[in-house]
């Protein structure tokens, strides 16, 4: 079976600095893959490459066997690849419901509609609240996003992506900046994502990674160093050395 999303020999550099080197990976349908690696390993760059925010210098990206590397960002989103951001990028002056509505309108190609239509608004309204319900955000629907606690902002960030009904979801550190103790809600939100959705999770929190992932890719200096099941990766000597520290303890935030 062809994987949902696949890259072949993906390369990118900023000036002379190679930030992505020959990355070949694949996400099957329903994938629960985690991408880990030290800071500066090029994880976010990879998300930018996959989502189309930047174009790779060479290599190919395929969705369902079809090359999408030439497609601009909006076309990739429309074909089902949606990302979230490491630092929440929400529309701070809008309510939570309106934030999600912006996404729903994009998915329904209704963002250019310039006259109120009761039928459409009812449909959009239902979809917005359905999405908020998936993340337990309904009580916050009419709150202005900028005034929410960080944990809820992170959930709203995921809500925007889910409102796009993606086929491939790229989660860039969904737990980043969330105070200890609030991470559980993010975790359960991620665990309850639709089963057939292919997810690539970037995360520093190893507890989250090992609970979530069935496949782990370790990225070091822009290249895939090791990949495999959580057990294989945890047992790998190189990974222990570079990533977990010499003793092999799970580090919460390795820097």
């Amino acid at each position, binding site marked *: 079976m062809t994987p949902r999303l696949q890259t072949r020999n993906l390369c990118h550099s900023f000036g002379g600095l190679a930030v992505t080197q020959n990355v070949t990976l694949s996400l099957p349908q329903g994938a629960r893959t985690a991408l880990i690696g030290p800071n500066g390993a090029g994880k976010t760059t990879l998300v930018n490459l996959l*989502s189309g925010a930047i174009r790779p210098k060479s290599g190919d990206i395929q969705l369902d066997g079809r090359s999408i590397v030439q497609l601009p960002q909006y076309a990739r*989103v429309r074909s089902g690849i*949606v990302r979230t951001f490491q630092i929440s990028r929400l529309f701070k002056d809008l309510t939570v419901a309106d934030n999600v509505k912006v996404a729903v309108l994009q998915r329904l190609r209704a963002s*250019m509609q*310039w006259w109120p239509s009761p039928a459409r608004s009812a449909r959009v309204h239902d979809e917005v609240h359905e999405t908020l319900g998936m993340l337990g955000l309904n009580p916050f629907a009419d709150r202005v996003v900028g005034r929410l606690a960080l944990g809820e902002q992170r959930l709203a960030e995921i809500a925007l992506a889910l409102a796009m009904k993606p086929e491939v979801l790229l989660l860039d550190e969904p737990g980043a900046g969330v105070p200890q103790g609030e991470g559980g809600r993010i975790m359960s939100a991620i665990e309850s994502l639709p089963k057939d959705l292919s997810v690539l999770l970037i995360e520093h929190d190893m507890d989250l990674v090992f609970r979530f992932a069935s496949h782990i890719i370790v990225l070091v200096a822009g290249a895939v160093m090791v990949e495999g099941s959580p057990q294989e990766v945890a047992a790998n000597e190189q990974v222990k050395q570079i990533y977990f520290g010499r003793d092999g303890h799970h580090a919460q935030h390795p820097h």
Partner: protein
Amino acid sequence: MSAVIPPMAMAAASRTHPWKHLRAEIVLTLAGLLAFVLFPQDLGLLTNMATVSIFALSLSLVLGQAGIATLGQAALYGTGAYVAGWTALYLTADPVVGLLLGGLGGGLIALLSGAVMLRSTNLTLVMLTIAVAQLLLELANWARWLTGGDDGLAGFEVAPLFGIWEFNFMGHTGYFYALGALVLVYFLVRNLVESPFGLTARAIRQDPGRVQALGGRVYLHLLAVYTIGGVVAGLAGALTAQTSKVANLFMLDFTTSAGVVVMIVLGGTRRLSGAVLGTVAYMTIHHIASTLNPYHWLFVIGSMLIFVLIVLPEGLVGLLDRAAAYARRLGGKEGTR
């Protein structure tokens, strides 16, 4: 005047009480009629306030909602004025035709210049908008045979409105024509702002990159907003030309662009009502202060602008909001937010 922001509550209200949905337009109409009764000797000024309010609405849409940084809105306003003048001189004296063609003219200039400018942002964009407006100003100055150069375009006749009401020296027709246009434009722009199109524009103002990551085509959206803003500014210019019977270079001038920015900042950029409020406040101060001292009236405007920017970041509409909230508290009703 109504807020533009909570669309869901308003949509719910509109089914049971349609007048609540039209609150802003009703208040605007009543205020216009009241002004007509109270200040009959200042009808010329009131007419100008109405036409410039439409101009301010165009900027409120472009800058306040979509966040397009422009200091060249006069290019679109002036274009509307000249087109209305040319229509009256060479095509037809019918005011409505001149008005619509003026709007089209403003929209066309916005579409063409926006297509070039709107890939830029921030300071670059501001500079480009200034440059386009200066270019048009120089062009108008050079093409004396068409625009009348420094003397402006004058001596055109405007036929009676709908073939009934004459534009006479009393100015009654001109005033109600301008007021009617203002209420209609306000209604149309408000619906636009509350629509999916308007919500997306506000989202783009706050984070264009995020809208792009949701599959949005930011450039096209901004171009559409700018073009509609151009149509509205063109309508305003055409109305000004028709009611004052002159189109001149000042309407394309940088100070006109800057003045309208000051107006919407005074009133509040995030709300359409702020545009009208700011225009009325600015022009009232101009009228009073320039009678007292024709050279230093800008001092008053400047001080007021500083005051508003520091004390009332939401503009004068923020003052109305606070007054309303205070009144609610006094009334004992629980207003949570």
